[in-house]
């Protein structure tokens, strides 16, 4: 019973960098907490009331001392802030070439899909040593994808995409928690992240998905929903060609430029009138209510895969 953990497993690259900063802060915290406790203790004991005729001296203030205890914490927090912000950028910038996996949260389960097409529920298999980027959304309320061993967490919102990335460093099974309160079974919206050596992961993938890769599923949808009738690869159709648009700046009819990220693609499909591509009429119908979150993600995987 006494062999309970006091410190979480370190199983990702960001776990190491997070803990490094945490230990620095722990040092700062210990220093100040001990300083205050010790000073209060010493003063209280040393100057305890013994003699009622003793009149304590009048010390109104010491500006130099005040300046010191404003300046020193100030200097320290600048360091903490800078370090924390750099770490945050590291957390928020997936390295190029990360494997893109898709996550949909709903009350109260996690649905995940690999680019190769495998779907899982409440589990996610990932390879060790390769960066993985998760593109996530929710079907209902806000959830949060939290893997303590990786020190990653990101809220998952309905109507939008959020993402996070990690690179596992040790094979094993790790807790996956939903950490944003989402209703009755919030505490049961848990699962496992299985990190596997790359070879094992490839073998696991080898099982293959019946419906093929996400992009090919997306392509089938693209044809079935009639997108292909307007979005011809030649660019001669009624709508613009979609090859290679992902990540590019798109000149809009209102003169602004929008980056074609996941949220843009989503909006273009569900609410095409919101941002009109320059030079095209506003004729694309909305697909609101006709595609599920997962199908949207497949469409997106397809659009990303089309070469210009």
């Amino acid at each position, binding site marked *: 019973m006494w062999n309970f953990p006091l410190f979480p497993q370190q199983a990702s690259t960001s776990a190491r960098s997070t803990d490094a900063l945490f230990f620095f802060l722990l040092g700062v915290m210990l220093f100040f907490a001990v300083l205050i406790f010790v000073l*209060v203790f010493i003063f209280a004991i040393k*100057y305890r*009331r013994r003699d009622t005729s003793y009149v304590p001296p009048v010390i109104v203030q010491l500006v130099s001392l005040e300046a010191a205890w*404003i300046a020193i914490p*100030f200097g320290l927090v600048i360091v903490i802030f800078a370090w*924390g912000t*750099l770490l945050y950028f590291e957390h928020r910038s997936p390295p190029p070439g990360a494997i893109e996996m898709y996550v949909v949260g709903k009350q109260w389960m996690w649905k995940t899909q690999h680019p190769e097409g495998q779907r899982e529920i409440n589990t996610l298999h990932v390879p060790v040593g390769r960066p993985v980027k998760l593109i996530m959304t929710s079907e209902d309320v806000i959830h949060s994808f939290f893997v303590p061993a990786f020190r990653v967490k990101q809220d998952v919102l309905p109507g939008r995409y959020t993402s996070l990335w990690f690179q596992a460093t040790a094979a094993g099974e790790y807790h996956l928690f939903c950490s944003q309160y989402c209703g*009755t079974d919030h505490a049961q919206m848990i699962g496992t992240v299985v990190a596997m050596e790359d070879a094992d992961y490839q073998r696991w993938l080898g099982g293959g998905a019946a419906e093929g890769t996400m992009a090919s599923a997306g392509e089938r949808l693209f044809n079935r929903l009639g997108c292909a009738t307007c979005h011809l690869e030649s660019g001669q159709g009624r709508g613009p060609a979609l090859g290679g648009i992902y990540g590019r700046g798109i000149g809009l009819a209102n003169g602004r430029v929008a980056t074609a990220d996941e949220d843009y693609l989503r909006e273009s499909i569900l609410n095409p009138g919101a941002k009109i591509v320059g030079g095209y009429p506003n004729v694309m119908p909305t697909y609101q209510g006709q595609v599920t979150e997962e199908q949207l993600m497949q469409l997106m995987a397809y659009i990303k895969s089309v070469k210009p």
Partner: protein
Amino acid sequence: MSSKTVEPVSETPVNYLNASFGLRSWLLTIDHKRIALLYLVTITLFFFVGGVFALLIRLELLTPRGDLFTAETYNKLFTMHGLIMIFFFLIPAVPAVLGNFLVPLMIGARDLAFPRINLLSYYIYAVGGTFTMYSVVAGGVDTGWTFYTPYSSTYSNTHVTAMVIGIFITGFSSILTGLNFIVTIHKMRAPGLTWFRLPLFLWSIYATSIIMILGTPSVAMALALVAMERLLHIGIFDPRLGGDPLLFQHLFWFYSHPAVYIMILPGMGIVSEIVPCFSRKRIFGYSFVAFSSLAIAVLGFLVWGHHMFVAGQSIYAGIIFSALSFLVAIPSAVKVFNWTATLYKGSVSFATPMLYALGFIGLFTIGGLTGLVLATLGLDIHVHDTYFVIAHFHYIMVGGMVMAYLGGIHFWWPKITGRLYPDSWGRLAAAIIFIGFNLTFFPQFIVGYLGMPRRYHVYPPEFQVLNVFSTAGASILGVGYLLPLLYLFWSLKYGAKSPANPWDATGLEWMAPSPPPTQNFPVTPLVAWEAYEYEKREVPVA
């Protein structure tokens, strides 16, 4: 007009307690001191209701399985625990009880500027509390105290609307109290009582009032919009209707972060009164402590986004909010250092209020320092919504503010009731609370960094041992909180009569008799001294 009562000499002089009798004379009183007592009773009631919820939470968490309550019940428990503790206990605790009692006394006024509005705000509070209790009794609410949309606005099918209305109403009580204090402190100070002669308690009440009036309307509107979404099915925050759920979080935290300073500033004010009194020394760095209250109140409004670092907020906004959060920590640091320095070369005695004040300094420091971890962008990713956050704020709110509140109650109890309580019982209770508190909440830092998410009634078994500590601590804490209730009650009847100034403290409130007469001061005092001139007073025998 001030009646010409002479300094009372008879056995039981006329005071605000025995000036008139009957329920009516209490329920319709416009005397700030009686209104303070009305609040005291109501707030104590709410504290114990919230405390029972806390105990039930801890009981469920004794085991990793959900064996005591269903998921729904548990979710309602922590929601109502949080809501009651925050909106009906801690926010009004010091301002409405001690603030109401002391503000006019400390500035030498006969009452607040708007006594009727003061009574009105008590009744608004009571009506809001009634709505809340209705929604609790009717079946409760399960949204968490934060009411995040779209869960609260479209998915939850509990009594959210009644609860939201209750909080909306209570908000106006807070606004009117703050308004009253601001005007009173500006306009009703006794002649000679300049800003820099004010006791620091008043500076912090003033800063608190600023937050109350400028923050509260935002959460009122946010909650009104949630109610409208629920009742009328219009989309304001609902993403399916094009809304942005983060907008709710912005409007909510625009109030609710500053509100945490509503919950701590008055406590800091109390500590700034107690520490000089029991060190027989002027407070160190008066003007720095005074201005840091204002700095906290103003800067505190600019940091709310630190609750949304992983919520899908822009990373650039996150950077701004993080930087400002660090800035707002500096004035708190200034206060802690100044209190510590006040002890230096003092004549320190360990009466009950002082023990609470010293406890406050230590526990607030721990809570505040862990706030730095949360304000650090890269680290909050890991600890957000885990027990680390729970431990952080309980350290500040329970270890800090509840301690300060109890310290203040013990400090001014003789003034309020005219009776002395048994000091040894007081010190015992303070020690029990200190130990129980740390046992409850320190393990939560560890279990939080391990990754245990908050608002979970079932959890992986490896977290159990730490949770057992926590539950054990909570029961000690419960006993600790029960004690003052008992002996303070006891003192009402059996306690020795208190002189006007039992601690030989400075401050105008101690110049009025204990308990003070309805008019507070027969003649308006003329202030020709600075605050905390302890060097000019005798040291009482410890």
